[in-house]
């Protein structure tokens, strides 16, 4: 039967509008959902950005033969050569200011002074030695060429952006639903609502609808930021990415609803919320790979919804995975979704 009412007068529309209004009229919620993840990505991206190859600092001891050596070495762009008095050069080596000290001995002889436990000293010795040998006429029998590969996708920022996206999905979905529900229960608004003919299913559905709409903005800004500013690759399809974000958001929404099903105070809900989120922050590979945890823990780690979301997002963005490759994470998320909603609805306290 067609409802003769204008669509705006329908309960599901009004309830969803109320969710939006509650959200965008709370500047802090806007900040934590949209701005904070970008600040975090920017900060971490800058801290762990890929630096250009470093130059190695080399000291040449000042003596009669030093001039020729310096001229020979400065041609190499990997080296930063300084001419120093013997005592100064020794002190610089000891304090790590130079990686290697080169001292010309009589004739064509050269002495290298360095600490063979410092990798950069060993590199410096090789580079300096090659430069000096070739400068004095050494011919290399094998012709070599360097092809440099600096691929986006293998940098820290590429690892980080999908992780932040997953963490943000978790936080905003769980808090977005959990906080409002518990707050309305505390204010006896839930009780007031259930004394009207309002459909309880529509009330809960309004949270999901509002969440999914905000999700588009939330995921959109962070992914766009990552791609444009840091050149993070998006190799998989936007459709796959959207489905994973959607399913992840619903699973976290279900978890948030489960946590919010009974508590009567926001404080009690906060405690439960942190209790649920903390293990995932640590274990689910937001900032570092979850593969670092021992094998015995892996089944537990893999079963967490944030691990599933992060693994799926990384596979899509960095490896171009499609649905066929994502069977495990998608199944894990679906299981969380179904179990959480079923239990939450069963134990939900309306009064």
């Amino acid at each position, binding site marked *: 039967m067609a409802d003769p009412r204008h669509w705006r*007068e*329908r*309960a599901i*529309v*009004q*309830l969803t*509008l*109320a969710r939006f*209004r*509650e959200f965008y*009229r*709370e500047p802090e919620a806007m900040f934590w959902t949209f701005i904070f993840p970008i600040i975090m990505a920017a900060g971490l991206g800058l801290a762990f950005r890929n630096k250009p190859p470093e130059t190695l600092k080399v000291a040449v001891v000042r003596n009669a033969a030093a001039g020729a050596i310096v001229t020979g070495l400065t041609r190499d762009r990997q080296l930063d050569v300084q001419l120093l008095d013997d005592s100064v050069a020794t002190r610089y080596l000891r304090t790590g200011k130079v990686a290697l000290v080169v001292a010309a001995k009589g004739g064509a002889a050269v002495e290298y002074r360095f600490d063979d436990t410092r990798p950069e000293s060993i590199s410096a010795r090789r580079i300096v030695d090659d430069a000096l040998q070739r400068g004095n006429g050494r011919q290399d029998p094998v012709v070599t060429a360097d092809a440099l590969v600096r691929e986006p996708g293998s940098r820290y920022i590429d690892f980080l952006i999908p992780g932040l996206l997953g963490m943000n999905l978790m936080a905003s979905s769980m808090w977005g639903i959990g906080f409002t529900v518990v707050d*309305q229960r505390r*204010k*006896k*608004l839930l*009780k*007031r*609502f*259930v*004394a*009207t*003919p*309002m459909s309880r299913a529509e009330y809960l559905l309004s949270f999901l609808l509002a969440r999914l709409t905000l999700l588009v903005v939330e995921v959109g800004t962070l992914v766009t930021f990552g791609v444009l500013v840091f050149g993070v690759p998006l190799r998989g399809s936007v459709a796959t990415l959207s489905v994973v974000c959607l399913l992840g958001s619903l699973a976290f929404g279900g978890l948030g609803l489960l946590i919010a099903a009974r508590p009567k105070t926001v404080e009690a809900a906060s405690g439960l919320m942190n209790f649920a989120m903390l293990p995932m922050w640590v274990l689910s590979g937001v900032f570092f790979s979850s593969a670092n945890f021992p094998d015995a823990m892996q089944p537990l780690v893999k079963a967490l919804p944030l691990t599933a979301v992060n693994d799926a997002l990384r596979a899509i963005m960095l490896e171009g995975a499609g649905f066929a490759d994502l069977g495990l994470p998608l199944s894990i998320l679906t299981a969380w979704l179904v179990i959480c909603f079923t239990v939450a609805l069963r134990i939900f306290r309306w*009064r």
Partner: protein
Amino acid sequence: MKPLVSKDASPALAIVGLIKRYGDVTAVAGLDLTVSRGECFGLLGPNGAGKTTTIEICEGLNEADEGEVRVLGMTHREHPDEIRAAIGISLQETQLTEKLTVEETVQLFQSFYPRRRPVDEVIAAVQLGEKRHARVGSLSGGQKQRLALACALVGDPELFFLDEPTTGLDPQSRRQLWELITRFKAEGRTVVITTHYMDEAEQLCDRVAIVDHGKIIALGTPRELIALVGSEHVVEFRLESATADLQTLGALPGVTRVKAVDDRYQLDVSQVHQTIPALLEYLTGIPATLADLVTHTATLEDVFVHLTGRHLRDG
């Protein structure tokens, strides 16, 4: 348009043998009550008397342990949705969402109801026209309470349940709310209201049930209840460091009943002009110094004191 199941012949509210226990505490201890359609009915009693529990069972927010409640001829078990669609309620402690405006809040509640009144009309009816775009958080206590009534009114209910709608409000806001409730009644709606303000019950209600310890201890029109006191006037006084003899007080001319509540003496009096001179003469003879002397016409408060020996506010 009438709700499907409601039978016009049935009373607005019929409660038979209602009992509700919370552990060892019996909140409602066998309560019977019938409210006719179009009536404004008051449940008057101190805090903790069982008024809220009773009204929440009627609203379907709480379940009875024993007894039956019929709302507009329907039970919550058989017709929960029909009842919810036909009643409008205001709860004691509801805080509406502060971030929404008055208009948005009324619109939201309107969307829940199958039968609805226009939002503009309802906002005008509760005199919040100037505040329609104001956030709920910025409203005064009285305005919030009127908005709560608007949320109840927008479903065009036949029956209102108002749980202490004026508690904590200033006198002017209370008066505005009374006007509104009087108008609901004039529109032919039934109103069931709980209060611990005797003046509110006297002012608004056609009939009042005085509730104490989960039971109705008196029921009738405010006039009938006041007649229970036995006389139209009350003389109250307090003495400094002396006691008066209750029997002597009872023998004074015009006194129908004597009661000592704490350090106050209370005389139910038919003829104040005869009693006062005789009382003053007796007190001078004790001798006693009068700390305080008040006379007033009997109110429902006096009825409550008369019946229970306690004041309504004592709880």
